[in-house]
């Protein structure tokens, strides 16, 4: 039973990984990675790592993938880029060479445990209780360091992704210009009504006998 599950999960994980690399549309690559992560979580469950599997699904397949999807939707896939001529050959070659080297290293390692099914299982292995106790006692320092790293990453992401000139509200200074004012604007003569001003002509064109312009009727016609 566990062998069947293992092969299903392993084939899912590997095909998801191949999909990430080969699919041209980044959005489909993200979906393939989500599939790969869920399959990998199944592999973790088979290895009795319940907490890691849960964290994988919640943090990765949940949060990080949503972040990816948002960025792909924001940036857009763009036109699919063909890889460079040299790297298109060199990349897969390098990957195959690395795989061969890893296989040789693994088969030649002589570790006896590789052939076995692992240490005898004792109940509670890999549960949140055990992992949490380890994190808060033996591995307290890496735990705190990880929290500081997360904080720094959040601050760094905000600094990187914000607009260059501070907050969006004060990005551009308000545009100011001085309109040329009609003569006698703001003088005592205007206040006393001694001289007709340009504003009077604008507000009451018929009183001045001026030809009616086809300018729209000013909405603000009241006096003081």
């Amino acid at each position: 039973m566990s062998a069947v599950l293992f092969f299903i999960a392993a084939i899912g994980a590997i095909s998801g990984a191949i999909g990430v690399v080969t699919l041209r549309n980044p959005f489909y690559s993200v979906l393939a990675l989500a599939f790969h992560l869920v399959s990998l979580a199944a592999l973790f469950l088979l290895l009795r790592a319940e907490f890691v599997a849960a964290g994988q699904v919640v943090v990765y397949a949940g949060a990080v993938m949503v972040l990816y999807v948002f960025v792909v939707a924001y940036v857009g896939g763009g036109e699919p880029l063909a890889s460079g001529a040299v790297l298109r050959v060199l990349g897969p070659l390098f990957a195959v060479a690395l795989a061969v080297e890893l296989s040789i290293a693994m088969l030649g390692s002589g570790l006896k445990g590789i052939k076995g099914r692992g240490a005898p299982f004792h109940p509670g292995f890999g549960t949140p209780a055990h992992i949490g106790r380890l994190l808060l006692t033996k591995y307290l320092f890496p735990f705190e360091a990880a929290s500081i790293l997360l904080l720094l990453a959040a601050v760094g992401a905000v600094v990187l992704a914000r607009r260059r000139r501070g907050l969006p509200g004060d990005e551009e200074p308000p545009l100011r210009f001085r309109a040329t004012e009609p003569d006698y604007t703001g003088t005592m003569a205007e206040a006393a009504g001694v001289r007709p001003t340009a504003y009077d002509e604008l507000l009451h064109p018929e009183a001045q006998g001026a030809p009616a312009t086809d300018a729209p009727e000013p909405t603000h016609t009241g006096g003081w």
Partner: protein
Amino acid sequence: MAIGWYLAVSAIIFCIGAGGVMSRRNPLVILLCLELMLNGANLALVAFARMWGGEDGQVFALIVLVVAAAEVTVGLGLIVALYRRRLPIDVDELSELHG
């Protein structure tokens, strides 16, 4: 299943990710391939933890998970900043720091 099978799967996933990092040009996909490599390493860590019957490897895998999340955040922030500055989303074009 023997532990060796899990290690083989982790090695294959790591190599697929490495090949993708080398051959793809979209920085988003390169980040995804980095995730693949980290996941391959994670699988090996958890497999070894099972092999020895200790949970230390799982703690290590969790820390790797955290580091991967931090890396994704900063990487995606960089990509958004690139997009804001109207730079091409293509690592072959972004060669100002070539030296």
